[in-house]
């Protein structure tokens, strides 16, 4: 076996094996070529899918296309509202689970994980049923924007906040409770301790959890598809209906914008979470 190794290559140097490098390259091509071509063709002059020259026209047209613009702004508004509430709810739940012993705690934790494991489509149809039976589906139709999106926002909070709770709880594991005791010894109230000691400590996980909720919300198609009424179309739902009928480069342009927004959020989340790891080690 060792005879086949090149000089300087240890038996455990799997990373430098040629076949692994080739496999890696092929998989990266498989993962990125479709996305890269989608982005490239957002700058295409022609709409047939054959390259005819570079242009920004598709971006300008998409911006002026009311249907696409509304869908994109709906998606962002929903993601924004859902992020704020999911972060608050997730953090509160994480704090409760971290701090307190209470009866039925383990079943409660399993119960919180349900939105994570139940198939999205089942949660989607359940919410569709709930909204139409309670009349919420039609009631919100004429409310002012973005309140007419409230059903979707509610649904997004329901499946996002358990994820935030997981992120926040993993940060709380490293919290030294003596800090909290010291704060209370020095006369701070429960609330003062919370705002001056616990929240600053949690801040990185709150931002990371919030950005996770943001991307989860932007990413969701299935639950939105079922819980949205006919007038509240989000960007993924819009692409879905357009893919079924016509494919236009304006969709490529709008998709590119959404990809950039999502990736920015992801990178910020990673930058913020990175120092946490070094602190621990």
């Amino acid at each position, binding site marked *: 076996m060792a005879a086949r190794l090149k000089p300087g290559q240890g038996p455990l140097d799997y990373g430098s094996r040629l076949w692994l490098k080739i*496999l*890696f390259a092929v998989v990266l091509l498989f993962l990125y070529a479709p996305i890269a071509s989608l982005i490239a063709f957002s700058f295409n002059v022609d709409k047939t899918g054959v390259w005819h020259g570079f242009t920004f026209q598709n971006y300008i047209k998409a911006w002026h296309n009311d249907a696409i613009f509304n869908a994109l702004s709906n998606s962002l508004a929903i993601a924004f509202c859902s992020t704020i509430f999911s972060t608050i709810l997730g953090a509160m739940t994480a704090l409760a689970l971290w701090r307190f012993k209470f009866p039925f705690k383990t079943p409660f934790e399993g119960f919180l994980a349900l939105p994570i494991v139940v198939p999205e489509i089942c949660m989607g149809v359940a919410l569709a049923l709930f909204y139409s039976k309670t009349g919420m589906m039609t009631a919100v139709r004429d409310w002012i924007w973005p309140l007419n999106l409230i059903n979707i926002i509610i649904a997004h909070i329901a499946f996002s906040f358990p994820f935030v709770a997981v992120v926040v709880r993993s940060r709380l594991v490293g919290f030294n409770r003596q800090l909290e005791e010291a704060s209370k010894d020095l006369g701070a109230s429960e609330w003062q301790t919370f705002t001056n000691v616990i929240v600053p400590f949690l801040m990185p996980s709150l931002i990371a959890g919030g950005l996770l909720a943001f991307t989860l919300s932007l990413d969701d198609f299935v639950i939105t598809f079922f819980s949205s009424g006919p007038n509240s179309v989000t960007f993924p739902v819009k692409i879905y209906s357009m*893919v079924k009928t016509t494919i236009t480069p304006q969709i490529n342009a709008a998709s590119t914008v959404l990809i950039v927004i999502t990736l920015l959020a992801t990178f910020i989340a990673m930058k913020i979470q990175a120092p946490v790891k070094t602190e621990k080690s």
Partner: protein
Amino acid sequence: MDYWKDFRKVFFTLMTLGSFWMLLFFVVPMGFLFVLSFSSKAIVNGETSILDYNYFSTIANYVDAAGSSYLVLLGRAVLWSAIATIVCLLLAYPLAFAVCFSAPKWRPILLLLLILPFWINLLIRTYALIQVLRTNGFLNQALGFFHLPQTDILFGTSAVIMGLVYVYLPFMVLPLYSTIEKLDKSYLEASLDLGASQPRTFWSITLPLTMPGVITGIILVFIPCLGSFLTSDLLGGPNNWMIGNAIQNQFGEANNWPFGAALSFILMYATFFVLFVRAMLTRRSKGVDA
């Protein structure tokens, strides 16, 4: 840890909103769905009503769902998810391995490259894949450029499985990476030192020790595949439906919500069964360790 009774106010402040949200917007809708799955459409004035149901009146929906045409869709979902999961595993294991054994400064970048697509919207990725696979798509343009025969895989089984692998591969890479990274490399060195070949080392040392990651990866890919309907809808078309498509259809065009509800519960039971098997497996492997 504090006992909840000692700080009732704090406890209830923290717990109420989250529990309320889960109860009202998850449990209650699921309860509605459960009731509906045992209901039939009401007949009002001799016509089938759109909105009214006879609640808890029948198990006909489940009987219908057990009919062969729907069992086929469930079976197909299980089969295709299994194939996609195996392909993901076969691709992701060597990749995660390569990342773990590459130079430390490259590791985060390589890992990020593999999981970054996970953050991009599922619909955008599926749409990108359609543009590649369709008849005048980029794949055929590339093949034509090299004067190779054209393919026509969009709206076929292989396109669906390819789509599932494309979408869920990052889910497999992550757990595999985290277990392989924790693997004590001296075990591998010891095995090789003692004369075991590389394949023998892999089968008797590396694979058993990274089994927890393999199982987690399988679960993380298999479960969402099982319930997926978008991939089979957009890449497979009407001849390649999975159980998820049937549910969507019953809540959409076919407009038979009670039957769709029954199908949803069958899908959920299948999911829970998979999780149950996983719990049994991990319990057993713990027993071996101890």
